[in-house]
């Protein structure tokens, strides 16, 4: 009898510890069926950042409390969007470290630190990391010095390590990779250094490169080369520095591309500069481009189109359509047909002064160059260089049909850089956290959570904040939107109305995307502020 009691106790202890389960592709494919987990960067393949959990609601959100806090080991800016898999959280720390935590307590289970050269200074970006991917029994980490590393999810042991790019060419990676069927897709950053953008796809088991597709021509005969005057495609650009989305039915990968090079002087690269500042759709098996849509032809303000593309289905004119929506750094919200790339809708979602509007094909009708092009003394243009949105994620709720975005309203004086470009350098006009601009007039840049009708872009409500917030959004089936203001107030809003329901000051700015998960029937919402990960739950 006593032995049986001990056995029960031991078994209870075993059950109490997190288990490390396999995550086959089928689980990723059906991630919405297990809302207790957060299996990929964007929550699901559509990057909707929608949690199906309903325990926390508008009625009880005011009771949210801090459940636990994990303080990271080193310094730097924490921008990680963690994965949660069957009670284990995988969070990344600057520059490229991974920590596995017990998602109930925040207690670390293992920690992995790759060998990153200490003297490596990436050009044009902060050395941080935004998350990992999982497939089978492995985690996939892209490091700041351009390695893709497969780790054993149970132990953090390295299974393979492949080079994605050469950091000497200006490449650096901060994004979470995307895991699909047997493959790991990863992009690169480094646009200010003249890195030549591409997407690479690796065999998930072996680390062997399966395909690589460049986003900017590398020879005069490449597609798009005729959109760069005088062979200026050789400058590079069109980096792929934020995680994209995937439609398993169409077998298409959707990924945003960054600025042409040099950023703030387009005189030496006349033309549309394909395929920069675009959304590209690639065949997942071959990497072949199925279609592209260029949001900002011949871009000169560093308004990358690297924002997460959100996939959703809706009826337009009575017909069901497969859609992709993107809130662009250039301050326009776009809806495209994701099968063909056809432009359907485009409206401003934040203050902008650079375009009169979009034409029937979605191409911007720019204001006169004298009013909008960067100049030596500075030209005041809205939005700011960091854009109406930057890398942080919007979200979409299939329940409300709304697209929730943290939108920035503000302008900057854009300063013209050199026409000539040297590889490995920024173009001389980059300041801390950005460049090519100095702050606009004394009125402060502000940010607001805006709820848009996902198919039309029409604003349903907005929640104005004080300061320049850099936090993504999360929407839940419980009817809540989570985000944070610039000072670090993490808050919950009613997803239908925008009514504020709860907030807590975390003491430092929140520069990451919130996620939600549950363990043992308890729903948590998690985000990081300063050097810490905070998990919130009801008492």
């Amino acid at each position, binding site marked *: 009898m006593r032995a049986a009691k001990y056995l029960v106790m031991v078994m209870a202890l075993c059950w109490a510890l997190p288990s490390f389960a396999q995550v086959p592709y089928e689980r990723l494919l059906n991630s919405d069926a297990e809302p207790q987990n957060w299996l990929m960067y964007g929550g699901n393949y559509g990057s909707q950042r929608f949690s199906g959990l309903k325990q926390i609601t508008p009625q009880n959100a005011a009771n949210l409390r801090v459940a636990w806090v994990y303080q990271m080991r080193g310094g730097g800016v924490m921008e990680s969007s963690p994965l949660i898999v069957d009670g284990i959280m995988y969070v990344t720390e600057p520059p490229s470290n991974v920590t596995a935590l017990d998602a109930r307590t925040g207690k670390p289970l293992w920690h992995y630190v790759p060998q990153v050269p200490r003297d490596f200074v*990436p050009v*044009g970006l902060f050395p941080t990391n935004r998350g990992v991917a999982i497939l089978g029994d492995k985690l996939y980490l892209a490091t700041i010095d351009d390695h893709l590393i497969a780790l054993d999810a149970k132990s953090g042991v390295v299974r393979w390590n492949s080079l994605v790019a050469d950091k000497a060419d200006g490449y650096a990676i901060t994004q979470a990779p995307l895991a699909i069927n047997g493959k790991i897709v990863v992009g690169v950053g480094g646009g200010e250094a003249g890195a030549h953008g591409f997407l690479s796809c690796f065999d998930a088991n072996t680390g062997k490169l399966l395909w690589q597709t460049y986003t900017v021509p590398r020879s005069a005969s490449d597609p798009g080369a005729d959109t760069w005057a005088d062979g200026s495609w050789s400058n590079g650009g069109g980096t792929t520095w934020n995680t994209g989305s995937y439609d398993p039915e169409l077998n298409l990968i959707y990924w945003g591309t960054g600025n042409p090079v040099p950023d703030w002087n387009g005189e030496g690269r006349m033309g549309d500069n394909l395929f920069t500042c675009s959304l590209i759709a690639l065949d997942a098996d071959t990497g072949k481009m199925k279609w592209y849509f260029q949001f900002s032809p011949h871009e000169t303000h560093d308004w990358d189109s690297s924002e997460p593309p959100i996939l959703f289905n809706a009826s337009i004119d009575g017909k069901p359509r497969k859609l992709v929506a993107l809130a662009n750094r250039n301050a326009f919200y776009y809806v495209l047909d994701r099968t063909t790339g056809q432009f359907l809708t485009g409206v401003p979602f934040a203050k902008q002064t650079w375009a009169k509007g979009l034409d029937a094909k979605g191409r911007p009708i720019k204001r006169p160059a004298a009013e909008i092009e960067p100049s030596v003394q500075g030209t005041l243009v809205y939005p700011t260089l960091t854009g109406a949105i930057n890398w942080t994620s919007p979200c979409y709720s299939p329940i409300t049909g709304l697209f929730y975005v943290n939108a920035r309203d503000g302008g900057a004086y854009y300063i013209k850089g050199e026409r000539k470009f040297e590889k490995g*350098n920024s173009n001389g006009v980059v300041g*801390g*956290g950005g460049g090519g601009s100095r702050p606009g007039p004394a009125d*402060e*840049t502000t940010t607001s959570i805006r709820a848009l009708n996902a198919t039309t872009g029409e604003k349903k409500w907005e929640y104005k904040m004080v*300061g320049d917030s850099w936090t993504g959004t999360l929407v839940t089936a419980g009817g809540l939107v989570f985000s944070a203001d610039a000072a670090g107030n993490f808050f919950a809003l009613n997803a239908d109305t925008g009514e504020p329901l709860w907030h807590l000051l975390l003491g430092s700015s929140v520069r990451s995307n919130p996620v939600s998960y549950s363990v043992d029937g308890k729903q948590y919402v998690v985000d990081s502020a300063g050097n810490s990960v905070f998990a919130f739950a009801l008492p």
Partner: protein
Amino acid sequence: MILARMLCAASLFYVLLLGFARDPLPAFPQGPQNGAKEGQGSPADKLTPADIAQGKQIFAAQCAGCHGFDGSGQLGPNLHGVEARRGDAGIFSVIRNGTGAMPPVMSLNDQRVWQVVGFVRTLGESAPVEVAKGDPTKGKTVYEANGCATCHAINGQGGGVGPQLNTIGRSRSPKYFYSFLRDPGKNPPPDTSLPERGGSAGYLLVHVVTKDGQDVTGIRVNEDTYTIVLRDVGGHFYSFDKTELKTIEREPGKTVMPSYGNLSATDMDNLVAYLSSLKGAQ
């Protein structure tokens, strides 16, 4: 124990509702530190004229917004002679890592940063440091007679509402002083207390009225979506939950510091000369 708790609660009540005096905070970026000049082996010594021209171009695009195209300082410090104070390595470090309100420059490679250092080194040579024409000794009398010490401290003496001025002569040019003293609200120093504001104007004057009729005007010390903290001209702090407030009026271009445009030209020259002489321990 209970008494202690009551005292704490009473103190908190006093702090939140009645305001309290506080220690002065340095509101300007920390003054330059003394640094030995980098000797042999400084990469800046190996720069070519083309490199320095490149550095000038970068400076014009990135640095001039705060330091002026000639480096004589506007919102940021006057950089003439900065090499003697910080050394090449010190200048490099400030550009790379930032200091005070100045953000770190993440996006230039080392060679570009050294080119900027190379240009900054030439500033003392290419343009003479502006010299104030008044008499600093007489200017000290003007400073004292006009009550400046009510709000500003020099070498430990004076109030804490405005910035300490121990080393203000290092970081601000006479030209700036003339402009600022005549119209203090026009060109306020950047906000260093709220980094997320990205260098927006500091010392913003805000007027609030609470729902129960309390009327407070002061400098914004802190503000987020839910709360605002003001400091009035007496140095008292007021912390409000915005749900308590009936109105919040922000008044950019105004400040609690009065204009001294009514000073005689001689007094102004002397005051500027005094402020320019405040360079701390040399």
